[in-house]
């Protein structure tokens, strides 16, 4: 099965790329393996408790993709800088209690790992 990796660098709402990534991944998941790597400000996307009155909840959208098989990882340096800390324990598929289910914090080495095993790569950043 072919693999698509999507690299994001922006937080939710301030840019539309979390939404676009969701639509890309949702389409791709029907036939392909999908990885999403959250880098720089994109580590804010899975933060729990988002309540965007006028927008679609970006964290829930992206968390929902993991149920369909997407592998979603956040850069540990970027996450740590912004106050998202990985823990030993994994609850609902996540090692960060600040995150929606299914999304794990890992090192930036995982990005290289994902890229080297991918057939196609898409990066979205403002």
């Amino acid at each position, binding site marked *: 099965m*072919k693999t*698509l990796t999507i690299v994001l660098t922006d937080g939710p709402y301030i840019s*539309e*790329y979390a939404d*676009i990534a969701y*639509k*890309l991944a*949702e*389409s*791709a998941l*029907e*036939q*392909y393996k999908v990885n999403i790597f959250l880098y720089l400000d994109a580590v804010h996307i899975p933060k729990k408790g988002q309540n965007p009155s006028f927008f679609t909840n970006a964290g829930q959208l992206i968390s929902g993709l993991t149920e369909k098989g997407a592998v979603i990882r956040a850069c540990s340096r970027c996450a740590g800088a912004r106050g998202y800390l990985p823990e030993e324990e994994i609850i609902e598929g996540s090692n960060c209690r600040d995150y929606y289910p299914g999304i794990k914090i890992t090192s930036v080495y995982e990005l290289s790992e994902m890229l080297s095993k991918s*057939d*196609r*790569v*898409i*990066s*979205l950043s403002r």
Partner: protein
Amino acid sequence: MKQEQTNVFLLTRPPLNSRSDLCLKLADRTKNVRLYLAGDGVYHLLTKIEEELPECKVYACKEDLEARSIRAGDKVKIPDNFYAMFIEDVMEHSEHTYTF
């Protein structure tokens, strides 16, 4: 019969933007380009991007056109499912994918 390999470009920036310029420069040097416009990329239809790149097939995302109230010229294709079409093109028929 094997379909010819294409080079797929996704452009989500408006005109007069340095990444749009970079996209168009690279597209200009590339053969068999399919240019997908989504997000603020659809504003390129106001400056008739499809005429600037006559060799290139141009697609635009319907929801993004509607939100921004942009009409597309006859040469621009508006797929029923933009993202499904883009993904198939990227995964099955493309040599390279570039996103700007």
